């Protein structure tokens, strides 16, 4: 197969934009000075970091550029936010999150519980939506932090974080959101928000891996995660990852220019992909809140077959995407997100996530729409649960 990779796994990571690479390159080669140095050679690098900071500030429309802290990744930003809140409010022993958060948040729960912190994980319904009454029930004056993702990485489902932040704010509780998947795809406006902290990640935004951002609203109590230096105004020690910080700034600027494309061009491709697949493949179900999700994400379950087989056959045609199946992760159970939504096992094992970017083309969409149905058909012809174009029995008739 001569075709270059058809990359539809942008929620996993994205291509570094050529403009971003050009922008960062001189800071890996020519301008290697330390931004903290007194000499001009280093100082000019510091200026460029200031520029990057104001570009990220613009992307999320933050009031002050000092509210932007550069970190090493989205996970560091998330951990910083959580541990900062717990240290700033040592008497508060509870945090609220959801069952469908990214592992960067969820896998902290057992550790936090050992430290005596209760971690409330809110339920979702079969479309992946939260129950606001349940949230209101758990939200208390002594909650240290609410941390809820802006949009889910697997299904694209968008959560009402502004409304939830407002509720937290009224109780005097800090609100953090992991906006790693949402940034650049949805408008974010910190000037008209009461969210206290936001995590962003460079590599989901066409910057390289190894750079993240934590927004901390002015006036929010903060305790650094990493100490040992004055950088980032004493809030994140360590010599700046200069080239990547500059890349993050450029990526943020590009994301702003292309924000409208996400809602139009990228969404049009996603919709065409989804429609094309659903029209030609029977027993395919879209997972997530279709009314309210990221414009680039489509999570489809192909019943009665297993996701790894689909991925491997697509891989053979140079199509890259991912699956919520157990077999692909090395764990034995399918995606925690789909299980939290109550997606039946007949469907959860066969889920595929397509996540697009502005670099995809309609031609690629058509290539996938043409080539996927025979793959599904082939695997179903091997499956003992499928016969002559139909399942041999219904396993979970209640689920729609």
């Amino acid at each position: 197969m001569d075709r270059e990779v058809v990359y539809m796994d942008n929620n996993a990571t994205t291509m570094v934009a050529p403009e971003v690479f050009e922008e960062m390159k001189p800071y890996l080669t020519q301008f290697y000075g330390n931004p903290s140095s007194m000499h001009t050679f280093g100082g000019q690098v510091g200026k460029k970091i200031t520029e990057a900071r104001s570009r990220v500030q613009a992307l999320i429309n933050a009031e002050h550029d000092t509210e932007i802290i550069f970190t090493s990744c989205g996970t560091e930003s998330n951990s910083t936010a959580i541990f900062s809140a717990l240290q700033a409010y040592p008497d508060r022993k509870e945090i609220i999150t959801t069952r469908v958060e990214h592992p960067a948040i969820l896998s902290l729960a057992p550790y936090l519980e050992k430290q005596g912190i209760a971690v409330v994980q809110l339920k979702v319904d079969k479309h992946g939506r939260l129950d606001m009454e349940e949230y209101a029930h758990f939200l208390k004056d002594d909650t240290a932090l609410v941390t809820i993702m802006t949009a889910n990485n697997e299904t694209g489902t968008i959560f009402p974080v502004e409304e939830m932040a407002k509720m937290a704010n009224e109780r005097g509780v800090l609100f953090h959101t992991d906006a790693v998947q949402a940034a650049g795809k949805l408008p974010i406006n910190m000037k008209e928000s009461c969210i206290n902290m936001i995590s962003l990640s460079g590599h989901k935004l066409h910057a390289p891996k190894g750079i993240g951002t934590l927004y901390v609203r002015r006036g929010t109590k903060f305790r650094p995660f990493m100490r040992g230096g004055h950088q980032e105004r004493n809030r994140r020690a360590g010599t700046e990852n200069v080239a990547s910080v500059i890349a993050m700034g450029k990526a943020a600027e590009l994301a702003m220019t292309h924000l409208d494309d996400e809602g139009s061009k990228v969404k049009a491709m996603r919709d065409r992909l989804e429609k094309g697949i659903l029209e030609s493949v029977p027993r395919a179900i879209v997972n997530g809140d279709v009314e309210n999700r990221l414009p680039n994400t489509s999570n489809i379950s192909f019943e009665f077959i297993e996701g790894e087989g689909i991925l491997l056959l697509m891989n053979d045609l140079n199509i890259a995407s991912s699956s919520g199946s157990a077999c692909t992760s090395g764990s034995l159970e399918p995606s925690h997100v789909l299980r939290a939504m109550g997606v039946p096992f007949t469907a959860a094992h066969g889920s595929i996530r397509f996540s697009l970017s502005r670099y995809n083309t309609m031609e690629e969409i058509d290539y996938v729409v043409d080539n996927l149905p025979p793959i599904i058909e082939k695997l179903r012809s091997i499956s003992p649960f499928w016969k002559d174009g139909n399942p041999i029995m219904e396993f979970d008739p209640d689920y729609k």
Partner: protein
Amino acid sequence: MWDYTDKVKEYFLHPKNVGVLEDANAVGDVGSITCGDALKLMLKVDENEKIVDAKFQTFGCGSAIASSSALTEMVIGKTVEEAEKISNQDIADFLGGLPKEKMHCSVMGSEALEAAIANYRGIDLKIIEEEEGPLICQCFGIHEKLIEKTVMENDLKTIEEVTNYTKAGGGCETCHPAIEDIIEKVWKMKGKEVHVKEETPEKKPAMTNLQKIALITETIEKEIKPMLAQDGGDIELIDISGNEVLVALRGACSSCVSAYYTVDGIEDKLREMVYPDIVVKLQKD
């Protein structure tokens, strides 16, 4: 991305013997859609007990499909008696090996083969179920006998290996102690002792402060003083406060540059004899 061998890839991309064998007289059905893999193995056995044809249907990952297809290739032409000897390791070997997390795919193959042969011999599946022993892993529906057999045949020694081979223990983990017991039992049958359980050092019973002080004094008198005396030194116990033991070194030790190393030695001895949290401090003159 799994590190599959070329043979696994080949058997997955172009599986042989897929489909329904209409005149099968030996059928083995194992796994379930809930667990994420299932295999229906269909064999045709002739009057000379020779397997003349085999087909399969599999719901599962790439290596499950490859293992099933490989199994059909392996059994065709063999007698039932010969086929019965095929182990899960044989299936994995036939494919040039499987990633360790995927060994359960080969176990599913050998289970299906066993079930098909039982079916051919007219053994009631219900009786087999009774022989499966108690249900160990609720999450994946794995019974004791399968775990025992797999541990025995593959020389498994850890829970992780059992999970890789049978899936048992891969869900909620509450069956881990039961799996440990099975591993130890099997290795006893093999005539070897295997300790799966983490060794937890026996905790010394809690002491009262008086007992503690008495034991520290005794240890210093009987163990440490003779040790230091060999080098012409001596020790004096000044105070005990909580976990801190304050001592002064006398004689040759007091001026010795290695006084701090001596303190480490004393601390080690006290930790060994009294309790492990003791900190020894040196009184400065």
